[in-house]
């Protein structure tokens, strides 16, 4: 559930909101419906990673990866696939960390 909510909201917002909105989405989603630390982190990580990779490919495929290849070379990476992976992992990390923070904050307020 967490995974799908983050996936859908991140995807939709990718077209008009700044990049850090994925952190807010992941944080709030985990705050409300997160269950465990591990699953919150990984579900958000995978969701944002997937969204970023898909959104990037939407732009990059009709471009024959010209831009991605140049940027890969700019960062001394051999090809566009590498910069795509870095993009995905970075997004995943932001999403995962934010979800984890949301979950831990929720825990801190929970009575047991």
């Amino acid at each position, binding site marked *: 559930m967490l995974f799908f909510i983050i996936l859908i909201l991140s995807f939709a*917002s*990718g*077209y008009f*909101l*700044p*990049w*850090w*909105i994925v*952190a807010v989405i992941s*944080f709030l989603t985990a705050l409300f419906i997160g269950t465990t630390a591990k699953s919150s982190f990984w579900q958000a990580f995978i969701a944002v990673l997937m969204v*970023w990779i898909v*959104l*990037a490919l*939407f*732009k*990059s495929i*009709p*471009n*024959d*990866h*010209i*831009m*991605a290849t*140049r*940027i890969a*070379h*700019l960062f001394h990476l051999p090809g566009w696939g590498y*910069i795509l992976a*870095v*993009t995905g992992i*970075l*997004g995943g*990390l*932001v999403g995962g*960390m*934010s979800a*984890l*923070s949301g979950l*831990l*904050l929720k*825990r*801190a307020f929970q009575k047991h």
Partner: protein
Amino acid sequence: MVNFRGIIIQAMKFTKAFISIFFTLLLIWALQTKISLVPPLGKFLSPADGFWQNAESKHILPTLDLKLKGLQGKVTIKFDENHIPHIFAQNEHDLYFAQGYMTATDRLWQMDIQTRQAAGRLAEVIGPKVLDIDRYHRRMGMVYGAEKTIKAMMADPVVRNMILAYTDGINSYIHQLSPRSYPIEFKLLNYAPEDWKPINCAFLLKLMSETLAGGSNEFAMTNILRKFGPATTNDLFPDYPMHEDPIIPTGTKWDYFKPLPIPKPSANFLAGMADSTNTKPRVEGIGSNNWAVAGSKTASGYPILANDPHLNLTLPSIWYQVQLSAPGMNVYGVSLPGAPCVILGFNNNISWGITNVDADVLDWYQEKFRDTKMEEYWYNNKWNKTTRRVEKIEVLGQKPVYDTVVYTHHGPVVYQNNAQKADGPDFVPVGHSLRWIAHESSNELMAMYLLNTGKKYNDYRKALTFFSAPASNFVFASKDDIAITPNGKYPLKYKDQGKFILDGTDPADDWHGWVPFEQDPTIKNPPRGFVSSANQSSTDPSYPYYINWSFAPYERGKRINDRLSVMTKATVDSMRILQTDVYSIRAQDILPTLLKYIDPTKLNAAQLSAYDQINKWDKNFTPNSIGATVFSNWWSQLYNAVWGDDFADKTLQNNFPSVDRTEKLLLNEPTSKWFDDIRTPAKETAADIVNKAFAAAVKEITDRCGKPGANWQWGKFKKMEIASLSRQPAFGSGNFESGGTASTVNALHDGHGPSWRMVVQMGPKVKGYGIFPGGESGNPGSFFYNDMFKTWNEGKLKELLFMQSVNEQSPRIKSTYTLTGK
């Protein structure tokens, strides 16, 4: 007890949550912040804001409607297969508005950074490491000159409307941008585009003046005069070369005007010349070619014009191709991103092109200040007040720097003392003021407007009177006429005034007014049936005025004139072949003499192989030629061996005597003392130095390329690439094989070369051909960033789509934009 444990657990949970939140925020902050040279990574890599947004799709919209505030009527823009805009407007305001809008769409960052460079505003976005570059531009008076020029331009209603409409068009584009749609370089450097201002158009023209007329060797020449004395200096740095083939043919009569009285040399100049005991170095390779052939020599019976300006090649390309059409005007050619009009091009009646004159329009004055406060200086036998200009330079991440520049009536004192100069350019003498043509107000855009709308020879002549700097050889062709004019605002000077540093205290060393425009050298329909220029001497020594004492070597001009002289039934393709000609006149002039000195029996294996190659070489700098590699290295070794010892003194700034003077030494003065290497006890002659240079050349090539073989080929040996303006190798062309060298017509050398090759066939139906190394788009993620490079590198031209009306059909039209007001 239980409660206490609960509180600890609760506190630990909060701590964990806060630690996690802290690190998450830290991560986001780090990804949103530019750290040193690394762009803010989250922002830069994310698909929402980052570089992915700059990946342009190959699917082009066939039609697009845009509503733009400020347009008066409807504008239609047709794009061809290279995404070149063909703009059709109902009035001139809308035409220049649309030109500004389209140029900004394709080249916004280039326009921004070049303006910043000229205006000394790079540190504002890049940081303190470029502060010295900014200070240099400010202190050279770039802002001072641009302010005067924009004032003159705005005083002319035609140019004023043009600049304002162009500016509005650019800003109309900028205002519709959101951060995610900023050009990639803004994202890399993490700053936002700012509004375009009319003065930016003036800055771009001043930048051209800096590139083409912003260097000088007066400081070095003065040091040479001090070291060697006048006799030797005059011998080694003569005012006219041995080999020359001037732009205005030798023997042309100057009977079309009555010259003004030539000013008398100053006392200081004469004293320097009588004594018997006692700026940025100019870059070789920034040259250009242009010519026009009369109908009597062409297959069609109508003139053909050709132009290829050589500049330091960059991506995004220096030029932006455009067709501009409105009632009363239909012109095609290349424009400078940031300036309205077509700069080099043609319309249905005339065509024109430009090469650099290299006039002596930058002079240093040695000033005598009353004291270190520099509030007064001695001039005309009395103390005079200096003025001051404070330059405020914004610096990224720091407080602004306030730099005070002292001005005398000559101009700015670029560096007041050595501490201020620090690592500044060698050619700038400390404590001297600068008189420079770029400080003058001028109205070059009016010249361009008159050419864009010109119909005949007289329009061309009128247009030139508005063009002050950089002085340019304007070639012209219409259906009936051909002409060429080394044109510019030339200061009236005594001969050689400005070869050396001038005396700031003496009015006799001031510029004495100007050479009237109509007295600039010019020639129309000469008997030889063609006109041409390749930066060589403008005229033979009989021209009454002093323009400069040295010009580019004559080789390219000579080759062009040799070819054009024998040409009959010339076609566009004949011109294309000449533009890409790589025959070496230098080799023709000196190689036989060089070879005479070589005794093949005394050579080792590698040397013998090199000797064989150069012996059978056809003197063409083709990419697969090995002889070219040997000759080129041999010559540069020889040149350095002849002068490197005598001119070792650092104050002489490697300002060696010219190629021409060195050739004269080799051909006519083989026993000259200059061949002796003063660092060795032996007495060397020409034979020794030529042999030593040959051995050194072969060693250098072997060290770099191994044993003689395919690796020795010129195309493989010579490094050539088109660098990106952002200095990111990933955005440049990378190294590519090419023929030619600085002294061949196809002057591809050290990143310099033909920035635009154009050939125009005049006649009842004008046909233009052209190509530049790059593309229309400045976006490295566009299919149109570098799409014309291949055709250019193959030495081919493209027929230009010169549309006669907006409704003209062509399979080359790929999309149409319709712009209307809102």
